[in-house]
């Protein structure tokens, strides 16, 4: 049974509009092996797996299952081919029990028999070493238990090709070990396991072979035993590309913002920021690199006063008064009242930074409407500002009364960044400010950030493109699994160095 190709992809291409998500991908996964799909964010891993599980249909190329050409047009077709996918975000009904969720949607012969189903579930659990109470309701379950339900759900349907999308992202190290043990047992049972991940050490400890994707393209497959961390990193991040973003030397750097031992938990109680410490100087751009969801958003929100932290301190050195204020667990309004001019370009532009249904003028007003004692709004200044930004940043819009949701992504971002800069900040934080933007808009944003830096603003830039981070930033802080895994000099660091730090989630060394 082993080493027999269970699934084979030939020249698979998938595009979304003008974005190429997958280009000519060739891939073979065998029975009785664990194949890792490795790649950065946006490298097309999930899109590829969605095509195997019938959520998307490839534009070009062919899929072979057990050597036969297969057409997988829907998730149901995928089940018929015994393919089961465990998504990153669980799709379970909270008020149902594990068993009810597992048999949900199954068209079985005979009566609805919960007892029999429970028996079969227990058998599956025993076979592979899962720990699950079939009667337990989903809403009382921990994340790892929910994942177990998802895995058993596909096994119950008889899947022998299992795809797991970043299964360890939500697990603790101990839970991860348990999951790996289960996956190895399934492999020994002759199943084909495909696991999507970007954690190098997991790839090395779990999988038999590794397929690497980069920016939608298939780079190659290597045998885990015959590869190294360095080789995989290089395959994953690629060679350095020169972008020619200008970078001036920081002038007169003084500490502007200090973050001391900040810990922060999410709603489920998991630690998302783990003892994070760093500082930002005035007149420099500090880049923050990391795999998506490593704590970047929480870090910025803790500084901006949008997220409560458990412990630690956020110290702001006020250049006007010379005071040092602790911003930890203050509201955005309290932070402003302290005289801290903190601007923040959040990742979610229309959901947080702007109000999509309001026009440009009213969006300008978000920052400034409180000014003055009058109970009424003053729309003249915001309107002037809107016109100035439209002109200076070349925003393409019919006018200042157009709702911002009608603008294109780049123009939305120009409006947002323009407004944040107009508040003449002393600290400017930008989360993924060029995501989804075309080249020209991206360079407009880089130039704006550089301008602010030269004015002596402390700029924090959270990015995903390592080439940009390495060319734009003076220093780069690398974050992995909520921990600072390293702070490197943007002028001397290499892509591999940063890439390695990004994937180092446990026992990260400070460099």
């Amino acid at each position, binding site marked *: 049974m082993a080493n027999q190709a269970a699934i084979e992809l030939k020249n698979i291409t998938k595009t979304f509009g003008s974005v190429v998500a997958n280009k000519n991908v060739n891939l073979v996964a065998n029975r009785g092996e664990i194949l890792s799909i490795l790649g950065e964010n946006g490298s097309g891993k999930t899109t590829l797996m969605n095509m195997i599980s019938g959520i998307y249909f490839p534009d070009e190329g062919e899929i072979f299952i057990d050597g036969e050409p297969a057409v997988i047009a829907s998730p149901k077709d995928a089940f018929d081919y015994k393919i089961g996918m465990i998504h990153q975000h669980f799709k379970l009904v909270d008020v149902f029990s594990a068993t009810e969720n597992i048999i949900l949607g199954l068209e079985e012969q005979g009566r609805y028999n919960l007892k029999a189903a429970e028996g079969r579930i227990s058998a599956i659990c025993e076979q592979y070493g899962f720990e699950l109470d079939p009667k337990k309701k989903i809403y009382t379950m921990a994340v790892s238990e929910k994942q177990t339900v998802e895995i058993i759900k596909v096994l119950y349907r008889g899947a022998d090709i299992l795809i797991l999308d970043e299964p360890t992202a939500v697990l603790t190290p101990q839970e991860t070990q348990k999951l790996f043990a289960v996956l190895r047992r399934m492999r020994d049972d002759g199943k084909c396991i495909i696991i999507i991940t970007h954690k190098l050490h997991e790839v090395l400890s779990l999988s038999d072979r590794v397929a690497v994707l980069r920016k939608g393209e298939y780079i190659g497959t290597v045998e885990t035993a015959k590869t190294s961390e360095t080789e995989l990193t290089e395959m994953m991040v690629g060679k350095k590309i020169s972008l020619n973003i200008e970078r001036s030397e920081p002038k007169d750097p003084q500490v502007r913002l200090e973050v001391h031992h900040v810990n922060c938990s999410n709603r489920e109680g998991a630690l998302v920021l783990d003892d994070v410490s760093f500082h930002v100087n005035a007149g420099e751009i500090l880049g923050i690199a990391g795999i998506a969801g490593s704590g970047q958003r929480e870090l910025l929100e803790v500084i901006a006063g949008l997220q409560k932290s458990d412990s630690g301190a956020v110290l702001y050195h006020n250049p006007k008064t010379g005071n040092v204020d602790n911003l930890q667990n203050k509201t955005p*309004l309290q932070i402003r009242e302290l005289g801290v001019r903190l601007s923040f370009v959040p990742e979610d532009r229309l959901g947080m930074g702007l109000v999509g249904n309001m026009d440009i003028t009213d969006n300008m007003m978000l920052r400034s409407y409180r000014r003055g004692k009058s109970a009424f*709004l003053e729309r003249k200044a915001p309107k002037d500002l809107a016109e100035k930004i439209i002109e200076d940043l070349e925003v393409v819009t019919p006018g200042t009364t157009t709702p911002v949701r009608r603008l294109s992504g780049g123009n939305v971002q120009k409006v947002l960044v323009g407004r944040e800069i107009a508040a003449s900040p002393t600290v400017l934080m930008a989360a993924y400010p060029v995501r989804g933007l075309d080249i020209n808009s991206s360079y407009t944003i880089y130039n704006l950030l550089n301008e602010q830096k030269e004015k002596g603003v402390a700029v924090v830039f959270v990015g995903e493109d390592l080439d940009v981070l390495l060319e734009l930033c003076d220093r780069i802080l690398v974050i992995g699994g909520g921990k600072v895994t390293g702070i490197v000099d943007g002028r001397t660091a290499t892509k591999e160095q940063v890439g390695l730090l990004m994937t180092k989630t446990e026992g990260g060394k400070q460099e």
Partner: protein
Amino acid sequence: MSQKIKKHHEPLIHIVKRDDLLGWQAWGIRLAAIAVGVLLIGVISSLLTGENFFKVYDIMFSGVFGRIFEGKTSMLWKYLQDTAILLCLGLAVAPAFKMKFWNCGAEGQALVGGLAAMFCMITFGGKISEFLLVPIVIAASILAGAIWGVIPAIFKAKWNTNETLFTLMMNYMATQLIAYYVYIVGGGSNVITPVSTGALPVIGNLQYLLNVLIVAALTVAMYVFLRYSKQGYEIAVVGESQNTARYIGINVKKVFLRTMMLSGAVCGVAGMLLVAGTDHSINTNTVGGQGFTAIMVAWLGKFNPFVMALMSGLIIFLRTGAAKVADSNFLNSSFADISVGIVILLLVGCEFFVQYSVRLRRAKKEVEA
């Protein structure tokens, strides 16, 4: 394993999202929907009753406005009064709904406002001077409405309770309070005899003029508040995105509390207008379900008080007019509700055409090789 290759045909009609409909075009579509609705009412009633198609509209019009051409304006005033009360309740719920706070408790808030007015009128009537009593009646009803409105907001802010259920529940409490009060005051009769102490003054001999004027002033005030005040702007931001509100430092809970207090207070005014300005008495049916119709007025008017005024006028016209048609033809009294329903349904349904346009299938495209 079976091969599954399904052939897909391009569907006959395409639904395409519009993005550039001008304001007047959207209102054109809505006006057309109203026209179709009114036409349908005429067709349906003439089919049901055998009445001449045009006669139906004649009955409706004269039933609502009376013989204004002969100088008799009492029915017109009644129409304006009904419109004003409905609009007042609509104005009350508009800020709450604009904030996406589902205040389904306008009914109860207006009832306790009316109850407070009634209580002051009966308890203090004759004991203190009218000059003092009228302001007390007004203040008491506003306060009572505000308290009734802010309670669900407090629970929402503190424990994130569901405001829809909470406000609905508060309606029942208000109704029961009034039933109890009527029982106490009215004794066995379960009716409160109208009292004139503490009632709003009558301008000239036009019974409803003051009510109409008060609501007209409220309409302008609410428009200015929502459009030009800082608090109104905060309401809009919270309603559009609570994340954005938090991001720019708006205290969302405070806005909830403040706005619901306002919403309840304006409901209290409506209750006061009904009790101290119109009936001079109260019963559990004083508001008569208009607290719910008001929600429709607010949404149909897109929270613009002036458009809401037109919508209230339309709803009252249809309701009164259709009731007259039903009366004169021995139709069931539900005919009025059905008529209002037809128009509202079309008016809500036409939003589809505001958001989307429908295109027919084009010539079949070349199959990609």
